[in-house]
């Protein structure tokens, strides 16, 4: 698979650039190559956003609708309306949130750095472990990771990835990346002026992710069964648009303190899903007035129960999939490979790559003794209790787990685990099931309505907010240039665009613009003159000076990019 991705239906991550066949040991010891760092930060951030109440609710409604379609088709008009409503809600919510999802992931790639806060986001903590874990840095791990990130960000890989981003269309109806990224940057740059805590980019991202994805009011709208497709579209878009637009208007002074404390003490909102099929907890740290009242609690439990009772009757394997998706949602899949395995006469299981032993431990009894063959290995990171495991499956059934600490996953946890090949197969079946609905005339009309509603609203919501410092009269021209080829449309010059990227990376990573390391990159360039040139172009097209060179520290300040 040449592009890495995360699937919101199951929260499955596929990192194509991580070849487990050759790098299993590197992954297990926390010695990943920095080549993988940008894409790792990107996908882990997607996964983290979907490991939330909103992500869980999206999975529930889509799996419910698609599993029904896969097994029963459309039985009657009432059922069709219900299925169509869930499908439309799922697709509409993801479409309208996509710029935020991509914006946060790109912010993680280019801007994420820890600061003064006592809490650390999951993308930072897991990346530090995966890339520097092998160095046994103890309590210096995060500081070293931060220092490493600051340097990596001005290497060719990052500069080139960010330059590519700035060529992307700014039109959310064509692509969510650039508009989403500039939107998140605008929120960050504005809000940090009012609250010191937001100068910590990692804290900002953590808080913003909770603001959007730990939102139980949105969960309520998603799970609601008393609505029609058209009203569902309007309600969801209106709700999300208000929530997004209000972020800069709200007084965050109290919620910042509460958020930090709740994350630190793990005392946010612990909501328990419990029925005969599954017992699990959805942990969230909601911001604002969001809470789980009795009515919502009843609705959530009912929808989860319905999911299981339906699936148990129709397709047994779906039960395991749902248990994995809901009960084991935070588990992050890092890679899959088919490898040689041997169980010795003394019961020792070894996993090999090209005859080199990679991992070994006592084999489970069911594997027998003196056995050799191929097994499937899936590496997963489990956040609570933290651990990195290689799950060994035979014929698609997980049989044991290995970890460097010698810890094994409990039988109960292991039964929740499905290897990625199976999950991707299930996604394909569930996606295929929607074809029945796609040929329905009413459903087509609902989709057209939803898509038109999104089209009208999405650029006003994200592009206008992203260009928050741009004068109104310059907006139409800026859109015209940026909708086609992003910031290249403004600069119209590859070298200037690269300079802009470098200046912005120096700014967001608090680097010394005149350091020896950077001199090699700014070949033959005068930093002050380059900044002036960039500013003049940005001012001409967008009406503000983006960069400021701070002479004393040789630092660059950026207003937006």
């Amino acid at each position, binding site marked *: 698979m*040449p592009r890495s991705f995360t699937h*919101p239906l199951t929260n499955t991550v596929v990192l194509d650039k991580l070849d487990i066949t050759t790098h299993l040991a590197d992954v297990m010891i926390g010695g990943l190559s920095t080549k993988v760092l940008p894409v790792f930060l990107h996908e882990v951030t997607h996964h983290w956003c979907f490991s939330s109440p909103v992500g869980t609710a999206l999975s529930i409604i889509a799996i419910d609708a698609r599993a029904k379609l896969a097994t029963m088709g459309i039985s009657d008009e009432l059922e069709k309306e219900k299925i169509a409503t869930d499908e439309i809600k799922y697709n509409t919510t993801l479409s309208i949130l996509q710029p935020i999802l991509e914006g946060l992931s790109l912010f993680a790639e280019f801007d994420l750095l820890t600061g003064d806060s006592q809490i650390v986001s999951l993308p930072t903590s897991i990346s530090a472990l995966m890339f520097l874990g092998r160095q046994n840095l103890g309590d210096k791990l995060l500081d070293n990771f931060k220092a490493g990130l600051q340097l990596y960000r001005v290497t060719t890989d990052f500069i080139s990835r960010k330059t*590519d981003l700035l*060529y992307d269309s700014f039109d959310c109806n064509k692509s969510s990346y650039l508009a989403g990224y500039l939107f998140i940057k605008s929120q960050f740059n504005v809000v940090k002026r009012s609250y010191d805590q937001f100068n910590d980019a990692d804290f900002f991202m953590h808080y913003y992710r909770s603001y959007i994805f730990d939102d139980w009011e949105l969960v309520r709208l998603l799970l609601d069964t008393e609505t029609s497709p058209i009203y569902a579209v309007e309600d969801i878009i209106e709700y999300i648009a208000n929530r997004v637009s209000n972020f800069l208007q709200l007084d965050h002074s109290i919620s910042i303190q509460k958020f930090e404390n709740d994350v630190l003490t793990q005392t946010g909102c612990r909501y328990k899903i419990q029925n005969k099929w599954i017992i699990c907890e959805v942990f969230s740290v909601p911001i604002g007035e969001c809470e789980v009242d009795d009515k919502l609690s009843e609705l959530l439990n009912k929808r989860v129960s319905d999911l299981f009772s339906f699936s148990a009757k129709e397709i047994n394997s779906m039960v395991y999939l749902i248990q994995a998706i809901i009960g084991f949602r935070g588990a992050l899949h890092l890679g899959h490979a088919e490898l040689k395995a041997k169980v010795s006469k003394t019961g020792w299981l070894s996993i090999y790559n090209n005859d080199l032993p990679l991992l070994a431990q006592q084999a489970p009894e069911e594997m027998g003794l003196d056995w050799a063959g191929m097994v499937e290995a899936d590496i997963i990171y489990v956040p609570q209790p933290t651990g990195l495991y290689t799950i060994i499956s035979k014929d698609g059934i997980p049989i044991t787990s290995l970890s460097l600490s010698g810890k094994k996953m409990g039988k109960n946890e292991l039964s929740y685990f499905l290897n990625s090949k199976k999950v*991707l197969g299930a996604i394909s079946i569930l996606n295929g099931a929607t074809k029945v609905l796609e040929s329905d005339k009413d459903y087509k009309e609902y989709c057209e309505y939803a898509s038109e509603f999104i089209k009208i609203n999405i650029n006003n919501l994200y592009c206008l907010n992203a260009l928050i410092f741009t004068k109104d009269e310059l907006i139409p021209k800026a859109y015209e240039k940026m909708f086609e080829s992003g910031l*290249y449309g403004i600069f119209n010059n590859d070298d200037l665009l690269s300079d802009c990227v470098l200046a912005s990376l120096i700014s967001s990573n608090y680097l010394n613009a005149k350091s020896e390391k950077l001199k090699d990159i700014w070949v033959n360039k005068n930093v002050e003159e380059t900044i002036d040139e960039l500013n003049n172009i940005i001012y001409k097209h967008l009406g503000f000076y983006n960069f400021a060179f701070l002479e004393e520290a040789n630092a660059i300040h950026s207003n937006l990019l």
Partner: protein
Amino acid sequence: MQSESIYVLHGVTKREKMQLSSEPDIKFEEEEIPDGAIGEPATFIIMVTMAALSTLAAYLLRKHKGESFEEDVEERLPDGTVKIRKVKWTKSSSEAPEADIIKQIQGVTSLGK
């Protein structure tokens, strides 16, 4: 069915695609991810026939700014077989760069086999 081999390079960005769009005989396709998935910014594959291999070789040299590199290029044969060739070019190579790269893409070893 195609009548000749097609050479394929993965992971081309939108910027690179824009820069190559004026070149004749190059086809682009977006790299797919499963329906409904979200992920990295879109990348493309470049597809060329033997007649445009020099364009592909020139692009690889330009992409790596004349520095040594390793890239995987696929050859899709008319019968559907796919061969992956590791193209390894070193700056110190004594051969003409483009010719060296084209030979490697075609799977021709230095002994002419």
